[in-house]
């Protein structure tokens, strides 16, 4: 394989990996906070993509401009899901782990149905925005601009998440993560922190969805395919670890790109899954998970 081709594959893996990382970051944040895996996470991303599509169709506004709008929408939706469903799921006396999984799973099916109800089952895509079909040529390595923009935004979002962790709110978040019951004693409203955590998690995946909509088709099932990768990313990086999500996301992007290039494109995820199982054999709590 010539060097230029290797670089091209590696660049493609990196660009995709950063998006995986941001999708996973939201999942990981929620998990770290309250031990809940959101099985509707991919569907939240799908909703963000449809939101971009709908607003673009209605107003012709460029997806990039819609970024803050959709991020705020998803933030609100995340909080609403927490208040309406998750808080209840956490308060059941028995089978809490199972109830939590299947409540979010039922929600995922519901959202998929709702999307199909509103937008139909066919694939849609956002075309003609100002980055569409343009690419950057770095010494023979072609980087499609929508993807470059997406990964830059993802990096910025990560930086944003890190900055949040420095604020008062971030400290309350960290304290809640350390000891759920003790924070009540020092006057932190746990419920509010959890709701904000869901808002942030959904907002993060919303940002990823907006950027993804710039170069990826939108359909009711688009979330499901990303979700599996997101779960793998989170488990590989270690539940609750932001750095883990970033490293694992990029790693998965690269493994996927190279499996596709060297072996067989339709088996690219098998490479990812194999690496994941291998790592978990040696580090059962992921690369950066607390042992």
């Amino acid at each position: 394989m010539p060097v230029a081709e290797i670089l091209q594959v590696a660049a493609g893996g990196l660009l995709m990996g950063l998006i995986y990382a941001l999708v996973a970051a939201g999942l990981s944040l929620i998990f770290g906070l309250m031990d809940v895996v959101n099985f509707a996470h991919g569907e939240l991303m799908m909703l963000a993509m449809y939101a971009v599509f709908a607003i673009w169709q209605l107003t012709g506004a460029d997806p990039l401009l819609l970024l803050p709008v959709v991020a705020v929408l998803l933030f609100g939706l995340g909080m609403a899901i927490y208040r309406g469903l998750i808080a209840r799921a956490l308060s059941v006396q028995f089978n809490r782990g199972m109830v939590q999984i299947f409540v979010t799973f039922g929600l995922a099916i519901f959202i998929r149905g709702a999307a199909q109800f509103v937008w139909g089952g066919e694939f849609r895509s956002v075309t003609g925005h100002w980055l569409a079909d343009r690419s950057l040529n770095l010494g023979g390595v072609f980087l499609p601009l929508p993807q470059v923009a997406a990964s830059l935004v993802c990096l910025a979002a990560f930086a944003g998440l890190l900055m949040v962790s420095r604020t008062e709110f971030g400290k309350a978040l960290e304290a809640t993560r350390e000891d759920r019951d003790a924070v009540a004693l020092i006057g932190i409203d746990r419920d509010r922190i959890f709701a904000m955590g869901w808002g942030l998690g959904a907002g993060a995946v919303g940002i990823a969805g907006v950027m993804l909509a710039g170069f990826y088709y939108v359909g009711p099932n688009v979330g499901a395919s990303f979700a599996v990768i997101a779960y793998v990313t989170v488990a590989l990086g270690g539940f609750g670890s932001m750095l883990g999500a970033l490293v694992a996301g990029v790693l998965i992007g690269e493994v996927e790109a190279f499996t596709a290039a060297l072996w067989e494109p339709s088996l690219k995820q098998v490479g990812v899954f194999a690496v994941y199982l291998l790592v978990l054999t040696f580090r059962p709590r992921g690369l950066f998970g607390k042992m």
Partner: protein
Amino acid sequence: MDNAILRRRKREVLGGVIVLAALALLPLPIKDVYTQNLIIITVLFAGLAQAWNILGGYCGQISLGHALYFGVGGYVSTLLYLKAGLPPSLGLFAAFGVSGLLALPVGWPCFRLSGHYYAIATVVVGEIGYLLFLNWDFVGGATGVFIPFHGESWAQLQFKTAKLPYHYLVLAFAAATWLTAFLLEGSRWGFAWRAVKDDVTAARSLGVNIFSSKMAAAALSGGFTGMGGAIYAQYVGYIDPDSVLAGHFSILIALPAVLGGVSTLWGPLIGAAVLMPASELSRSYLGGSGRGVDLMLYGGLIVIVALARPQGLVSLFGRKDDHARIA
């Protein structure tokens, strides 16, 4: 001796006989094929959910990858029939064996993981199976395998139009899973599994070998799921990775047990009796529009039942001294 365990087990046997008799008679007055089909699918999924319940319920290892065993079972009996001439009536048992054995190498890495790490690893293993079959030409790849019709026969489990034989086939399967769960519940294994589910550290301190307990549960659970897959393949006459190995089958298999009530004998059947008709009916009356209303209803139902009845629908029928079981 007289205690709640013995009293409950007597009641369960009686209940089992009554329900079995009722289900044996149920299809006799029904002439319409749609309803017959719905009952068959419901009973089949009651059996599959009971198979899942052995690992996911009693042993508490929430597997979200059972589509692998289901699909592999379907492929094993089908391919043995097409390529080696083994009649599917025997192929069912081969499917049981292969899927059960497959659960061991799957369990080996996965059972080192706990909680959500385990659940996600099972999703991944299931996806790997799906992708490999999709790209494996020997098993028909994405095109799948068609089972040609060679005339009505119990050996080959083929019946042209009659639904009744299939009904008794799935009923025998579901009864076998129920009986297995019943026997295990009262055995050393069943106690070990429930101990593992409740508290691993305490179970270990009482001499329960955690890893082999999980492996045994996985093998039995995988084996029965594979057998169900073989029956399903025979019933529909055509399988491809999307119709038997896709990830949503894993959820479909687990859901009746979860919503009906995990680690109970009747939860899987009750769950299937609610979920399968709900999903079928909403699909045929609302799904035709392609507008997703069926999915919204189905998803909404899952959310509502899970929140309103975290111990499962079976708790609606619970007796006072059964409360510990449902908890």
